[in-house]
């Protein structure tokens, strides 16, 4: 019986005007978005390889002139544009994507200016995740808002229930058909988008991307089930279809506009952290303290003679100063991570935010990527320092006094560029992605179950007259 209901509903949906309009809109955005992505990706990659070539060139020049300088010079690692951006960009251009480091430490991260234009308003790219989270979530609500209340108005509901069908089956049939209808749109759009990507030959559609696409489809299914449940809920709350429409629109506005846009407020009010200038003052105070207590001669300015005893004192002092600064900064970074994580937890009320976070695990971008780069870069920095210390140890002309800000009392010998370890970002492993994803999966499944059960209970008591 449930099959009959689903087929009837599907036919109803597929012939409806809302299906035609939303299908057209969806396909157009999929196509425009993918073409725009390809055009942009090309330019982005060109700029990035130019940047990377120049970066390596400078590194080579420094390495071939002075290894000590190689250790001291601060560099920025900028992450490369992801080829699977068309699935989800994870708002990476607004994310801290520039990491400053030298051989002595990883100093911090910032939102690089890179290729973004500060004169443009903040926006979301038209990728799959945007289309699903904005257009399809809206469409699925349009398919569900009147499944119950609309049928009640036309009197069809009374007729259906007069047969010997349990209400659960009626509800489930309608619910599943709404999900199937929107899934059809999503799959159609995604296949079209993949075809465009493959035929453009600008980006390789790899097997990893295929796996990511499948995982993405699974998430789309969960996400649409969640929004469909919310739409059905608004349909059983109200007895008139126009009121249930208003209700589902309100839900949608809360999820798309209000929750994501007010996260900053919660972050600042509930999970506030210290201001950056307070941290600056703390660092300054600690720094002044260290300088005051340093032994006589530690602040002498440089002289060309590496073995001058004052250089050793200064090297010790600067090392202490860097360590004290970084101890304060690192604990501040931990506060920042906690603030973001707690704020994300609050914004999980919105299935759309939830869907966005899950996509990060699927494509290996956003915060998941950030954390990975941050940890890996620390590992690399230790390795880089070890490499330079080994070179330094072999140099009889070096007093081996490590000063993070000066290359005076360490080796000044050149080193072959090919030997210098380079930091290359590795993609997130499957295990890391899953561990990032699993909590969100639990939340969304719980969400669906809770909303659907509430809908079911309300529907059992629904007055069909």
């Amino acid at each position, binding site marked *: 019986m449930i099959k009959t209901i689903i087929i009837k509903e599907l036919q109803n949906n597929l012939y409806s005007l809302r299906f035609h309009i939303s299908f057209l809109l969806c396909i157009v955005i999929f196509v425009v978005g993918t073409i725009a992505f390809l055009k942009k990706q090309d330019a982005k990659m060109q700029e990035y390889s130019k940047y990377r070539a120049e970066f390596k060139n400078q590194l080579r020049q420094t390495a071939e002139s002075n290894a000590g300088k190689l250790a001291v010079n601060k560099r920025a690692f900028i992450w490369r544009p992801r080829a699977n951006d068309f699935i989800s960009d994870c708002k990476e251009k607004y994310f801290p994507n520039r990491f400053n480091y030298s051989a002595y430490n990883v100093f911090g991260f910032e939102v690089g200016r890179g*290729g973004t234009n500060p*004169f443009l308003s903040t926006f979301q790219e038209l990728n799959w995740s945007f289309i699903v989270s904005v257009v399809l979530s809206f469409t699925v609500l349009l398919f569900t808002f009147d499944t119950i209340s609309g049928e009640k108005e036309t009197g069809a509901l009374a007729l259906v229930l007069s047969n010997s069908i349990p209400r659960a089956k009626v509800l489930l049939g309608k619910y599943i058909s709404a999900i199937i209808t929107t899934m059809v749109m999503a799959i159609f759009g995604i296949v079209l988008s993949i075809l465009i990507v493959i035929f453009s030959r600008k980006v390789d559609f790899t097997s990893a991307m295929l796996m990511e696409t499948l995982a993405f489809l699974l998430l789309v299914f969960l996400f649409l089930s969640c929004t469909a449940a919310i739409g059905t809920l608004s349909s059983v709350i109200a007895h008139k279809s126009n009121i249930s429409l208003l209700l589902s629109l309100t839900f949608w*506005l809360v999820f798309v506009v209000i929750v994501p846009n007010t996260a900053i*407020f919660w972050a600042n009010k509930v999970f506030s952290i210290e201001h950056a200038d307070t941290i600056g003052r703390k660092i300054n105070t600690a720094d002044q303290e260290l300088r005051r207590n340093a032994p006589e001669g530690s602040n*002498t300015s440089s002289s060309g003679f590496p073995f001058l005893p004052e250089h050793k004192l200064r090297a010790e002092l600067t090392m202490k100063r860097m360590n004290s600064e970084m101890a304060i900064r690192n604990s501040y970074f931990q506060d920042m991570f906690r603030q973001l994580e707690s704020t994300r937890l609050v914004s999980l009320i919105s299935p759309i935010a939830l869907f966005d976070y899950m996509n990060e695990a699927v494509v290996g971008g956003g915060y998941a990527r950030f954390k990975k780069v941050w940890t890996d870069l620390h590992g690399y920095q230790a390795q880089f320092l070890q490499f330079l210390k080994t070179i330094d140890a072999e140099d009889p002309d070096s007093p081996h006094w490590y000063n993070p800000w000066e290359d005076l009392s360490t080796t000044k010998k050149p080193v072959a560029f090919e030997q210098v370890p380079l930091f290359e970002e590795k993609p997130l492993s499957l295990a890391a992605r899953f561990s990032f994803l699993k909590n969100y999966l639990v939340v969304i499944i719980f969400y669906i179950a809770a909303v659907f059960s509430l809908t079911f209970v309300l529907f059992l008591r629904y007055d069909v007259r």
Partner: protein
Amino acid sequence: MIWKIAKKEFLLNLVSARFIIGFLLCLFLIPFTVTVNIDDYDSRMRVYRVDKANAENSFKVRVYSQLRPEIVKPPEPLSIFCQGISGNVGNRVKIWLGDKPLFATGKAAIRDNPLLNSFFSIDFVGIIAIVMSLLALIFTYDACTREKENGTLKLLLSNSLSRYKILLGKVLGVYLTLLPIVLFCYILSFILILNSPNISFSASDWGRIILLFFVSLLYFTVFIFIGLLISARLKSSITSIIVCLFFWVFFVFIVPNLAVYMAESWKKVQSYDNLQYVLQDLGKEFNSKCDEYAKTLEAPDWWNNMNHEWDSDGRRIMSGSSKSRFEWWRKFHEFSEPLRIDYADKKWNLQKAYLDSLNEQRNFAEMISLISPSEVFRLISASLCCTDVASHCRFMDRTRRYRDEFIDFFRDRKIFSSFLYITPQPPETFMTADEIISTRTGGECKNLKELGEWMNAHGGSWGIIRKVQIPGTHYNEYPFLDLSDVPVFRWQSENIFAGLKQVFLKKVAGLIIVSIIFFYLSFLSFLRYDVR
């Protein structure tokens, strides 16, 4: 008769669920958004005060080479209503000799945690753009269809009532319903603003808000006519609302993202990092020219700089060196600083091209976004609230003009060739190397040669030179420069009509024309509407 219909429509709307839900939505959203933005403004204000204090310190210098004034722009009070691009651009500009101001800095300070950048925020104008357009559509989608479905339209038209009167009555009715909601939103935000102690609006700000109010009215008028047109073209209410909602999603949510995304893809902009590399090359060229020049200078009797501190952009303060060393540095700066300014102009050619490409991209995005009334509304609001790109560019232009003024001041006074550029020590107290050495070593070494011998005997130590201090040879002993005649950048908020002429001529006129066209079309459609 029009009034009667309008009154009837108004009363019907007033008791409807959509009015209550719409009103509640505003009642919840507006105070929340305004509070969030007031909070944001307060924290910007806090950062501004800290920055301002630091900027004032940039005038406490002992030599002219260390004078690099900093300009801090106060946060725009109207950003509470419309943030525009104020969150993307900074508010601090440091005046360098070697660089013309390209971007303002200090953006990260507004948000202490850069990770939170991935969350967007919405402002008053954003809420009005989303909610009022939705309400306008929700109140008009069934203007014709519902009455037709109920059969009351037939009844109405069987009276000797012209159709245009019915239509006008309906429009007026919706207007009467929406007007109190908008008015309520504005009054609510006024109350919140007047209650917060840190915000003070000038007369021009109030004028701009009143203009913003009228633009909001115009904005939802467009949507009223869109809804009316759709309603007059379609037969059933449910079809009408679906079509209306798709238009709404398209205009409010898709076009803004589509426009910017397409602009980013089709109008290429060089990466800022790559621009930096090219600028670095110019910097290297400048440095090597300076080095070459330094080789041509006559060597001083002693290269020692004694008390010396230096930084980028030619900032240098020194004292206690020998007379010829001072002279060497004076000649060096006399050459390097004008060259630095020339190189800033060379860099600016590249930077200007980059800036132009950014503007071109933005114009392209703006052009596409013109298809959406809500984007037009946002653009107008940003110009009204002085948070648009044009206001920012005007500010940056003024900082560049100020830099010119500042440099002219240096040139007119021949400061680059004076000793005061690098040292507060008066030229009459300068000593020769031998005089310094014999005084400082307490007569133990008479000249450079003897000092060298002493140092060789003591493992390269400079200890002996610190034996006797010569008064007046440390720069910290001198007071700060009197800079009362240096030009100062005066920040004035823009007057009420600044930059508005263009906006009103084009965008507001556009909105008016579009709404007239929609009204005309809906009028035509309603005349032919089949009431059966």
